[in-house]
């Protein structure tokens, strides 16, 4: 009896393990973590026509949006007393995971923040997000938003969300180190390699990056090398599965990536470094000199009270028009919203991104805004302006970890690490990613 009860006790503890993995657990409200004290907007946007019926909307978004939404929430609900908003905030990874769990249990909120590409496309493909194509046409969104934002938010043939931010990625560098070493802005890959060699000889680290759990960071360099060797047309064809990933151009790009690693152009141990640390290594000017980052580098550096005039920007010298990788953020709406709820959701987004709300607290918004005529990039955001102008002039391509589904992107991240560690050749790496693409397409 004693033996049996001990066995039952052990089985009880073991079964808790399996229960923890049970799918389709209903999602409860994501935890609210206020990161900043609420900021009161000084100018309240004018209310448009209020909906007739009472509407309650649930909104899931990131912690980093807390200040911006909190600033306008009371004003919005005062302007529209029939609309009630329940907002939840979370960090990026748990937000993404929470959305997936909610999707499988049918408990998605009314509105949720998402990224473009395959992240947002999952909801469009599975008819979970509202197809805004007709609504956009009826309400002249082509004049309301930048065309690039509409294009990047069009996933699986439908306008999958309300665009809320456009991001572009380029090379941020320390101006003082470039001046001291007599380095000019690289216009070609060879010039970039020469700059890295000069910096390395001076005892500094040329490029700060990260991989491992944050493989998307070094991927920004790898995809620019692919752009260099493949050119825009082939690169786009590879990203849309029209051409194989294990083409010669990609193998050449991975070869060059391996060369960068072997020459010591990346920070030591980058395969397990964290992406949040990568840009901060430029702050002192005595560690790393360049980082491939988005325009948020400037905002984050300002928040950390770093003098951003010490930094400059140039597009990665990938040849041709030097296209920059880009991605969109958007707010997706639940496919089951009623007409009244959809109207209320759009009213909220319009209010959040109104001219008055942005002018009141520009620090709460990610520039450039994808809406036309709302706000220019603040004059103080010099790097952001330069990046946006370069993207407008040279064009953009969808960033790799959104062009590919998560399972293919993870294989790419792993391949990047294995090539860097010398346990896989570039040919094998390209083949491994192609195999993952083939498996994904077969299962789709």
């Amino acid at each position: 009896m004693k033996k049996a009860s001990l066995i039952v006790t052990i089985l009880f503890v073991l079964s808790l393990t399996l229960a923890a993995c049970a799918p389709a657990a209903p999602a409860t409200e994501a935890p609210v973590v206020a990161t900043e004290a609420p900021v009161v907007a000084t100018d309240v946007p004018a209310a448009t026509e209020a909906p007739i019926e009472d509407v309650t909307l649930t909104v899931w978004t990131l912690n980093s949006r807390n200040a911006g939404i909190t600033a306008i929430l009371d004003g919005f609900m005062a302007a529209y007393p029939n609309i009630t908003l329940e907002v939840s905030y979370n960090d990026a990874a748990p937000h993404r995971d929470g959305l997936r769990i909610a999707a499988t249990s049918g408990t998605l909120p009314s509105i949720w923040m998402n990224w473009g590409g395959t992240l947002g496309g999952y909801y469009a493909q599975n008819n979970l997000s509202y197809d805004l194509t007709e609504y956009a046409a009826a309400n002249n969104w082509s004049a309301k938003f930048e065309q690039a934002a509409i294009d990047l938010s069009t996933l699986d043939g439908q306008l999958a969300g309300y665009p809320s931010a456009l991001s572009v990625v380029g090379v941020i560098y320390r101006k003082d180190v470039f001046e001291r070493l007599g380095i000019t802005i690289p216009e070609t890959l060879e010039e970039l390699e020469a700059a890295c060699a000069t910096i390395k000889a001076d005892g500094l680290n040329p490029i700060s990056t990260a991989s491992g759990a944050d493989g998307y960071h070094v991927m920004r360099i790898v995809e620019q090398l692919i752009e260099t060797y493949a050119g825009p047309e082939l690169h786009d064809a590879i990203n849309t599965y029209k051409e194989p990933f294990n083409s010669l151009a990609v193998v050449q790009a991975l070869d060059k990536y391996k060369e960068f690693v072997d020459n010591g152009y990346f920070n030591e141990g980058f395969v397990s470094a964290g992406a949040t640390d990568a840009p901060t290594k430029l702050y002192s000017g005595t560690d790393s000199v360049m980082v491939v980052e988005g325009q948020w580098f400037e905002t984050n550096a300002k928040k950390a009270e770093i003098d951003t005039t010490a930094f400059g920007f140039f597009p990665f010298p990938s040849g041709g028009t030097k296209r920059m990788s880009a991605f969109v953020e958007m707010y997706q709406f639940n496919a089951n919203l009623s007409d009244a709820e959809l109207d209320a959701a759009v009213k909220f987004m319009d209010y959040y991104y109104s001219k008055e709300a942005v002018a009141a607290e520009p620090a709460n918004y990610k520039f450039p805004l994808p809406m036309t005529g709302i706000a220019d990039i603040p004059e103080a955001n010099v790097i952001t302006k330069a990046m946006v102008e370069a993207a407008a002039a040279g064009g953009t391509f969808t960033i790799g970890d959104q062009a590919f589904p998560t399972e293919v992107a993870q294989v790419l991240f792993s391949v990047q690490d294995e090539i860097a560690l010398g346990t896989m050749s570039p040919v094998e790496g390209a083949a491994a990613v192609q195999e993952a693409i083939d498996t994904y397409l077969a299962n789709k």
Partner: protein
Amino acid sequence: MKKKSNFSDYMFLVPAFVIYTSIVMIPTFYSLYVSLFKWNGIAPKVFVGLKNYTDLFFSDKIFLIALKNNLIWIALTLVFTMAIAMGLALLFNKEFRGRSFFRSYFYFPYTLSIILVAIVWRRMYDPSFGFINEFLRLINLEELTNTWTANPKIALFCIFAAALWQSVGQPMILFLAGLQTLPKEVLEAAKVDGASNFRTFFSVTVPLMKETFVIVIATQIISSMKVYDIIKGMTGGGPANSTQTLATYMHAQAFLYDHLGKGTAIAVVMLLMMIAIVIPYVIYTAKSE
């Protein structure tokens, strides 16, 4: 005299039974059911039988790496965590000034959040500015510096060191509790008979603490099989999947790649492994009483 149970006794078990069934048993068997399907959580399920399992064992290289890593983690836990915890318990079972302080000191890391431990140790292992390499440089041992968690050959052991620092407090306390229940006269009798400390420990202390060992070993094996937080926080399973464990890979399959069938299959494998290791040990221990 043994009291006979009547109906009302069983009625008191009903609330616990309902909660346990709904929260544990039903999800457990549902997971088993889902593991027989190919399913992304939204589209209709497609029955594939045991294909998820055969795919894992015969064509999934990362699963085999994760399985190997879990077995290594179990071995490291049974050797190092148990030995260090027992050693500290034996030390703190003796009377000396400051004993309470040192018990708290060594137990304290166990109270910390595992993610906090992961962040702190990740920074300590940084090759450029981490404490470990900086310290080695300071004491003129630069040749011993390493990339630590960026080195796939030793990354798992680096993470284990962090986990060991964090977790040794709990088995230490369990062993200490067990030591304090030992009858003093038996230990004194062994001393009087001329047994050395070493002989007393293995021939008297360990046999008397058998039930404590059963609980500690069983819980340590179970937590070794489930190790997730510290791996996720320090390396995310990299570099190049070298630190993947069954739990991290299960999470990736189920929640990143939407392969719920494969994810739940990994969970079933974990459960069966724990049953295969823990139950025979418990039965053997119970039999030898």
